[in-house]
Structure formats: structure tokens, C-alpha cells
């Protein structure tokens, strides 16, 4: 259909995005890493991907098996890392396929003590203070950071864009009251609120997302509001009004597209901010629940162990730095793509 054909403007923007080689490659690297981390369970896990034993196939990644089901003695969930399980598999001549990294983020690596253990062939980046494999923690922490950042960015953009549209297009008292509300609301001390709240509740992913959303939706409002104020006086918006279209339709169909350029340009940076916020909250121990994999918590361990175990701060630092840099480069390329003053 004609609607899906790329307009020359879109094509020119894509070309300009591609022309920024650094941003273009950053996007692919980011998408690749993110895609891989989505399958973290298949890359780093303390359960085998496949066990072929006595003509039967088992897939522990997908399904929980009890020890008795696998020929053990107890009716408890199997612990595949236990030495006797290895003996059992050897005895029965089972084919066991392990993931690339045979630890999950919360697996305590046996016989690597004393913790933290230095990098080795088994623990590529060593273990942390509690004996957990750092590579596995990084993979899971990377995933949760991006998912959190994405969710927060999308949710706060949707709310922010809608609020900005209402303010800019309707103007008048709506604008006045929302604007004053935002001024007061943005004055709230978010960090203290989180500290107080986390004393009462154990912060889960959704809970933390909700709290952060309460304060992060305002980021895009000003931008969208200004664009909507400008678009309100465009001839085609006036023409739409003269046609007798309802305000909601004018806002969504005619004004909204004008504000998207500014929004899309800002998005990688908003996401960057979200991830940095999550990491610093985790670092301060006011972030995600104690039992979640997190880059921030790794960093806070690193603070105390920087000298004895330099692999902890180095790996945590480089992961966060690379992630944030990739997003900044993508953001720069997006900004170039939408910059009308750039050449073809």
C-alpha cells in the first residue's frame, strides 16, 4: 500500500543515519548484544541444555526435573552442579550438553574458594565476593538494565508525549495547570522518596519501574509541548480544524507526527539516563531487590574489593561504559539523521 512506501525524507534520514558509521555500527552491536542477552538462559545457566540418558531426552532448561526422575535418590529438584550428579551421569553414560557458561547469575561456583576467585578458564572474569560467576552476572545484568531502560523510556515517552500534546495543542488553562503541576512535581526529592519507600517495600522490577515512571515522564513534555504549540499554527492544522475534525483526531493525526522527530531524537539519551539511574540506585542498594542480577550491585562490591580483586571493578566498569557509549553513539546518529541542516 502507498502508506508504507518510504517517503524521500525518510530515505534521506536513513541514509544520513547510515552515513554516521560509528552510530550505525553501534546500533548493530547493541542489537546483537541485546539479542544475545535475551537468550541468556541458553548461554549462561547452571542447568544442562540437554541430557540424553537411557534412551530418554531431558531438557532441564525448559523443565524442572526431580533427582528421582533422573535416577537419583531424593525427591527434590535436581542440582545439576552437585558432584554426585556428575558421577550419576558418568555412571549411566549420559550425553550432557552444557551451556557455554555452566553457571547462572546466582550459582555459587563450587571449589573456586576463596572468593572472590580470580579469572580462570572456568570463570572467565572470575567470581564475586559471594562466589558467583561474573560473566554470568554481567549477561543477566545487561539484560535487565536494557529491559528496564526500554520499558521506562517507552512508558515515559508515551505519557510525556500525550501530556505535551494536550498542553501545546489545547493551551490556555490546561497548559497553565499542567505546567504548574510539572514544576511542583519535578521538585520532589526522588532519591529520598526511594530511600523511604525501600525501607517499607522490597523493590521489585515493576515496582521500581512504576516509581521511576512517576518522575521520568516529564522529561519530554517541554519538548513536545513546544512542537505542538508551533504546529498549532500550521496551515494544515488550521485547515483540519476548518474541516470540522474533532480535536483528538487533529492532535493524533496532524500534530503528533510533528513532535515525533524531537521525541525520537531524544529517546536514546532518555534510555541512557534510565539505565544510568537504575545502575546508580542499585549501587546505592536502593534499587532492585537483593536477589536480582545487577550491574550496579557488582559496582558497589567493586568499591570494597578494587585492590584485592581488580577483575570485578574492571568488568563491571567496562560493561556499563560500553553499554552507555553505544547508546550515546546511536543517539548521535539519530540526531544527525533528523537534522535538516545536514547535507544529503
Amino acid at each position, binding site marked *: 500500500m*502507498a*502508506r508504507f512506501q518510504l*517517503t*524521500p*525524507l525518510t530515505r*534521506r534520514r536513513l*541514509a544520513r543515519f547510515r552515513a554516521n558509521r560509528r552510530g550505525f555500527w553501534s546500533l548493530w552491536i547493541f542489537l546483537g548484544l541485546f539479542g544475545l542477552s535475551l537468550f541468556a538462559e541458553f548461554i549462561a545457566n547452571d542447568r544442562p541444555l540437554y541430557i540424553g540418558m537411557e534412551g530418554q531426552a531431558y531438557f532441564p532448561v525448559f523443565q524442572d526435573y526431580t533427582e528421582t526422575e533422573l535416577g537419583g535418590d531424593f525427591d527434590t529438584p535436581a542440582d545439576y552442579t552437585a558432584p554426585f550428579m556428575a558421577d550419576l551421569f558418568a555412571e549411566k553414560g549420559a550425553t550432557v550438553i552444557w551451556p557455554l557458561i555452566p553457571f547462572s547469575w546466582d550459582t555459587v561456583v563450587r571449589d573456586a574458594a576463596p572468593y572472590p576467585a580470580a579469572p580462570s578458564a572456568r570463570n572467565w572474569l572470575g567470581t564475586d565476593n559471594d562466589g558467583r560467576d561474573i560473566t554470568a552476572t554481567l549477561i543477566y545484568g545487561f539484560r535487565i538494565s536494557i529491559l528496564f531502560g526500554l520499558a521506562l523510556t517507552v512508558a515515559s515517552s508515551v505519557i510525556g508525549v500525550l501530556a505535551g500534546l494536550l498542553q501545546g495543542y489545547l493551551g490556555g488553562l490546561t497548559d497553565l495547570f499542567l505546567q504548574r503541576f510539572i514544576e511542583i512535581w519535578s521538585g520532589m526529592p526522588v532519591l529520598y522518596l526511594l530511600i523511604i519507600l525501600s525501607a517499607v517495600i522490597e523493590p521489585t522490577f515493576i515496582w521500581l519501574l512504576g516509581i521511576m515512571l512517576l518522575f521520568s515522564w516529564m522529561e519530554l513534555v517541554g519538548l513536545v509541548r513546544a512542537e505542538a504549540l508551533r504546529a498549532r499554527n*500550521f*496551515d*494544515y492544522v*488550521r*485547515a*483540519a*480544524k*476548518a*474541516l*470540522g*475534525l*474533532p480535536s483528538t*483526531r487533529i492532535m493524533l*493525526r*496532524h500534530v503528533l*507526527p510533528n513532535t515525533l522527530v524531537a521525541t525520537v531524537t531524544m529517546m536514546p539519551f532518555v534510555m541512557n539516563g534510565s539505565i544510568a539511574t537504575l545502575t546508580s540506585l542499585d549501587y546505592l542498594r536502593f534499587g532492585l531487590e537483593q536477589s536480582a542480577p545487577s550491574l550496579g550491585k557488582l559496582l558497589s562490591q567493586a568499591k570494597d574489593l578494587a585492590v584485592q580483586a581488580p577483575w570485578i571493578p574492571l568488568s563491571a566498569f567496562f560493561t556499563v561504559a560500553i553499554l552507555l557509549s553505544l547508546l550515546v553513539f546511536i543517539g548521535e546518529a539519530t540526531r544527525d539523521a533528523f537534522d535538516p541542516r545536514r*547535507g*544529503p
Partner: protein
Amino acid sequence: MSDPILSIRDLSVRFRTEKGPRDVVEGVSLTVAPGEVVALVGESGSGKSVTALSVLQLLPKGLGSNPAGSIVLDGQEMVGAGETVLRAMRGAVAAMIFQEPMTALNPLHRIGRQIDEVLALRTRLSASERRVRIVELLAEVGLEALASRLDAFPHELSGGQRQRVMIAMALAGEPRLLIADEPTTALDVTVEARILELLDHLVRERGLGLLLITHNLNIVRKHAHRVLVMHEGRLVEDGPTERIFAAPAHDYTRHLIAAEPAGRPEPVAADAPTVIEAADITVSFPLKRNLFGVATKSLVAVRGVGLAIRRGETLAVVGESGSGKSTLGFALLRLLKSGGRITFLGHDLRALSGRALRDKRRAFQVVFQDPYGSLSPRMTIGEVVGEGLAAHGIEPDRAARRARVQGALAEVGLDPEMIDRFPHEFSGGQRQRVAIARALALDPDLVVLDEPTSALDRSIQRQIVELLRGLQARRGFAYLFISHDLKVVRAMSHRMIVLHHGEIVEQGMVEDVIAAPREAYTKALIDAAMLDG
């Protein structure tokens, strides 16, 4: 005549585009002698402006270049000259005047300082001598009144005054050639005439050469010694003004000269019912509000205007910018709040609001001036034209709506097969047709035409005027036609009102007003339009 100050030979201008290099100007040759006014005319996109920019090598860096030809300015070859040479030539031998004085002047600097900057660069005068010189220059361009207001900012001046400041800046470097790129297009017609007189005067007194770039043939006929006609990057005709207008040799020139809007509107039926009647329309914009949001100081844009339009009739609203003519149109469309009474086909329009008003909007439509701004760039023209039909539930069925949209496109002379294209694929004239199709698809009774032709080339203007007249004859639309161009007004309208500072200063049948204007302002408008026949 003496040696030419400027001589261009076989000039090409090449632009780098996405699809590779494109020559927008090819093989143009021209000369300008001291004391001579040479007009470069052509429609938009003909390459006249880039030719002018090439003279001072001001083409956008990296995008435009002169791969062939030579430009000799006062004995100095400009093509390929180094930056030092170019800087010495710019402003000192040739200076440019641009179309939009508001953007060509720096809004943050006082006008005295902007002129002083040129003097400091080009002369060895001391600060106090420069000050005297600035006052002299301002006097020369007819701004004696500003001699005591050198610390004024550009926004404090009127459009005409700003353009005069631009000319004073151009003169400060004592150039021998002025290049004026559409110097009056952004100005009101009455101001335009005075700016052109000033340029004429400067050419005579100082012996300047003037290269005048314009699309307005009236200006050319009155002010130029020689005319060069450009079409699609080539020079198609070159000759003395009288000869070109009396006996144009090239088809394109004939086409340009014949492109003046002609003809008269169909007479209105004697028993035609009144479509809209407005009385005592007043629009004011609050400038200051007190603590309770009540306006304490306001700008009255339209004051006590009354009018009536009958079916099949066109009422022209004429006035210069700021006279309130567009505001009046928007007030009648209920796009702006106003005082007074508006009776539309027997309904009191000001009593309606919300849903009831939206439903009524079908019957009064609008066509805007700028065909580029009035169509959403992200919608196909089918969606643009069909949107109103869908909103009013006129054709709920998708296929029937599409057929009706195609019918509307055909009626405005567009190929109905183009329904799925986007606005950027169309020329200005075609876009304006789409905007007209959007209005007529709803089968309105009244159409407000807000300068629908003033952003278009003359030959396109003529086509649009004929289209609008034809639609009126077939469908009996009542038009409120807002314009400052009396030629188009005369070709379109039955009656006219002249607005000045928001009030009606003169009204009557178009022919009567043109034949015997009572107000000085109306006279100035008529003089500027150079009506004939």
C-alpha cells in the same frame, strides 16, 4: 555606454544532489553597465537567484559550484578566485540586497552598528566620521527620521524601513554594482513602489549598475532598461525592455507576458440568496492581562466590519499586511473569537460551539496562501481530501469515499490516478489544486480564499483563478477572497472592501472602486498594480 561593470560569460551552476550533480544553470551570459538596470526574470526554479549568488561566489559551500564560464566583476575574474580576493570584492565592488530584510539583518544588533560594521571594514574613517557617514547614508535612502534612532533594533522598524537599512548597508562599501534579489517581494505594494523609486534614484545619482532579480513583470516594465528572461536554467531572451514587451521573440517570454490574470467573474443572479451576513465584527488580541486574566490592553485587529456575500458572488477583501484581512477571514470561519453577529444561511454562527459548530463547518471551507504549508506532508492527497468526508460521515463507505475524492481531484484538474501520492511529489500549483479539492469535496456554500494565488508564479496564478471562477459558475460557491493583488482581485471578484488598520475605508463594485478610488490608500494600491485594459 561605458565598459560593463559586470560581465558573465557562458556560466554554469552545478549542484550536488542525491542523484548526482545537476546543472541548474547552463551557458548564461550577461553584462551590466554602470547606470544600467538589468532585470533577470523567470519563474521560481529558473536559476535566476543562483546566477546572482554566483557573482559574489556565495553559493552554498560544497553543494553549489561554477564548473564552467567566467564572471568578470570590475576587471576581476571571480570564478576560482581565492577567499582574500573575494572578500575584497564583496561589498566593495558589488553588494547584494536580499528578499527578506528581517532575516538579512541581525536581529540582535542595533541598525547603526550594522551599518558601522561595513564602514569600519571598508573605509579608513574614524569612529566619529563613521557616525556622520551613517547619518548621510540613512538620509540617502530616505531614512532621515532614523538619524536620531541609530540604536533601534531591526524589529522596531517597518518592513520598508528595514529594506532601506539593507540598502544603506549595501551602499556603505561604495559598490559600483547592486544585486537585488527579489528586493520587494516581501513588502506591501505601496512600500514596494517607494523602494523601487529609491533604487532608480541611486542608479541615476551614483551611476550604479543594478542587477534586479524578480518574477514581477510590472516592476520590470517600469524600472528596467534591459530584460533577460531565464527558463529552466537557460537564457531564452535578452533585449531592451520596450522591445521585449512589445514584441517578445521567444515563446516562453510570450507565455510569461500573457500570464497576467485576465477575464472577469460571471455576473451574480439577481435573486441569489445571501449566504453569509456579518455585522460589527471585531477581533482583538489581548496584549496585557491583569491578575484575574482580564485583558487590560489589547490590539484591535478588526473593528466593526460588516459584510454580506450572496450565492455565486465573490467579495474581495483588500489591504496590506497587518490590515486585518486574514484575521477577518478567520473570524468569519470561527477559527478566532470575535465580537459582532455572523449569520450563515439563517443560523447564528456565534451561538454554536463544540459539536454543533463542527458539524456546521462542512458548509464553510478555507484555502490558504501557502500550498506547501497547508497540506500535511505525511498524508497522501487522497487522505488529505477524504479526511473531511470521513469526519462528517458523508461517505462512510471506503470505496465510495475514494471515488468521491477522485471526482474532486478531477474537478480541480488533477489526474485522479494520483490519489495515493504524497504532497511533495506535486508542484506549488498542483498542491493548491489539492487544497481546493479538499474544500470543495465537502460541497460547501462559502469558501474563504486567503491569498490563494500570491505564493504562485503568474502563469499558475492565472490557471488557479480560472479554476476558481469555473467552480463558482458550476457550483455557485460564495467566495471571500482575501488579496493584496488588484489584478487577481479584478479577475475574480464582484465587489471589494478595502481594509486599513482593521476598518473598512472603502467598498463597492470592483470596477467602480478601481475607476474612481476615493481613498489615497486605495489609489496607491491601484497604482502599484499597474492595471491596464
